[in-house]
């Protein structure tokens, strides 16, 4: 196992009040060699805190973790040699060039000077940075800067590279580019542990993922396995008034596995989520039933389960509502 944690915890004591804040409450997870592992969750769920603990930046309050064969808490110096980490704010200085930063990074990892230079050139080519590698970092676009950040994390060929929200704030094209870079890194033998609050990113990029909320892992598995937890389809019906009557009517139907009612929105409409075996067959029946009771749905939507549905099912909240 590349990473294995048991009961990893982090509590903060807030400065104003004396109460303890539990940022991470006992995380158990396993990351295998060669994987792209994703940590999916809303802001404030404890993703970054966990990542910072695993990369030796934060001391855990409790629990144990093995990273790349070393004990995180007792052998942090050895762990540092094996890992790379790219934080949300990157870490490049505007007045120096990408090449200088790459050489410096190699030197920080105790690589000999000449090797640092050849390795910097290698990385510049691999990440397609030749055009701007000798310009000052402050002239880079967001996507270029992010590419350099990830390149810096991989200069010393780490066994595992931690990426904290690698594509947040990037335009769609740069995002797609970043996904390619991450896949290429994995092909070259570096496992990836990334955090994201983008559902499509977790779905498309990760081999396996854990969904985290409120400092706890809610569920984990491959994206396909997770979506399979929600067998069948989901029919979402918007009802304006008499939502309770509607769910009473629909719940006993044999094709309905479960009905969940959301909170009323600003117009007073309530969305009922029906988990059904076969969505397309269920829709006409649902409409007939509601029509018979004189309830007019304001909207109806049928979709295959997504990771957002998994999240919603587990936590009762939607990741999409998390605007920030």
């Amino acid at each position, binding site marked *: 196992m590349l990473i294995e944690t048991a009961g990893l915890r982090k509590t903060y004591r807030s400065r104003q009040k004396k109460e303890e804040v539990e940022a991470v409450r006992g995380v158990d997870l396993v990351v295998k060699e060669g994987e792209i592992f994703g940590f999916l969750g809303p802001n404030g769920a404890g993703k970054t805190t966990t990542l*910072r603990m695993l*990369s*030796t*930046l*934060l*001391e855990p309050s409790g629990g144990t973790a093995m990273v790349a064969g070393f004990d995180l808490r007792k052998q942090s*110096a050895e762990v*540092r*040699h094996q*890992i*790379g*980490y*790219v*934080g*949300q*704010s*990157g*870490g*490049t*200085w*505007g*007045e*120096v060039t990408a090449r200088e930063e790459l050489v*410096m*990074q190699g*030197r*920080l*990892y*105790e690589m000999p000077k000449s090797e640092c230079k050849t390795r910097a050139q290698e990385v510049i080519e691999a990440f397609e940075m030749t055009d701007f590698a000798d310009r000052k970092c402050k002239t880079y676009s967001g996507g270029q800067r992010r590419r350099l950040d990830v390149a*810096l994390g991989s200069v010393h060929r780490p066994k595992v590279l931690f990426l904290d929200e690698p594509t947040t704030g990037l335009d769609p094209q740069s995002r797609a580019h970043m996904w390619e870079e991450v896949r290429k890194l994995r092909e070259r033998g570096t496992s990836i542990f990334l955090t994201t609050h983008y559902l499509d990113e977790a779905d498309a990029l990760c081999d396996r993922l854990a969904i985290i909320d409120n400092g706890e892992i809610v569920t984990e598995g491959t994206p396909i396995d997770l979506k399979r937890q929600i067998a069948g389809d989901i029919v979402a019906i918007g009802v304006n008034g008499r939502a309770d009557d509607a769910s009473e009517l629909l719940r006993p139907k044999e094709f309905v596995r479960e009905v969940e009612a959301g909170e009323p929105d600003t117009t007073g409409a309530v969305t009922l989520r029906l988990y059904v075996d076969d969505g397309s067959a269920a829709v006409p029946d649902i409409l007939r039933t509601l029509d018979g009771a004189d309830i007019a749905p304001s909207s109806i939507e049928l979709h295959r389960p997504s990771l957002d549905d998994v999240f919603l099912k587990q936590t009762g909240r939607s990741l999409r509502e998390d605007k920030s």
Partner: protein
Amino acid sequence: MKLLRDTWLIYKRQMGLVMRQPTWIFIMLIQPLYYLILFGPLLNNLPKGMPGFSNGAMETFVPGLVIMMAMFGTLFAGFGLIAEIREGVIERMRVTPVSRFALLLGRSMRDVSTLIFQAVVLVLLSAPIAGLTINWGGLVLMLAIVLVIGLALSAASYGVAIVLKSEDALAPLLNTITQPVLLLSGIMLPMALAPDWLKTVAKFNPFAYAVDAARALFVGDLSNPAVWQAGVFLGALMILLVFWSGRKFARSAS
């Protein structure tokens, strides 16, 4: 060995960044000249026999000026660090195996280097501009005191910057602490002019010894007790501050 190597690595990077800013070098040189040209002439017209000025006006003023430069030149080093913290540079380096003390010492040594450069320029220019007589042996020892002050205060500034993480909080805090330290050091006017109670308070200010020592060294009085007192008190303060700040770099610079 690793500490030395890493400190050199960080120092080289930081010095390279200073050298790329020609305006910054110009500012470093012009600042002490302001004092020399705009304030120094006032002292030349002091009545003869003022207490504390027996060594001569310039020989009293310039050493004080050098110590003041040492204090204020390094005290605000933390501002640059806050910018680096914000950009994630410190975090990025803390994930590498680099020595945490080197992250501090490399930066402090940069501050001390520019400081000593400024001090030497100031003293050398004081000779033709203000008619100062230079004692070379004393000058070397005084630069050693400048080095200790620079290390101590830049380390303090970095440590406080890591704790506060905000420029808005850093500036007033540093000013509040340094104003009394400056006034009690006898830099502006010699403490010989002070009433007894103020002299007693000043005895607890290590920087007052630095000013006394610098003045003694300037006239070649190398065996003046203020010299070893300054060395011991400031040396102890420096070791304390460097260790405190180094721990801050290791623990929570994010």
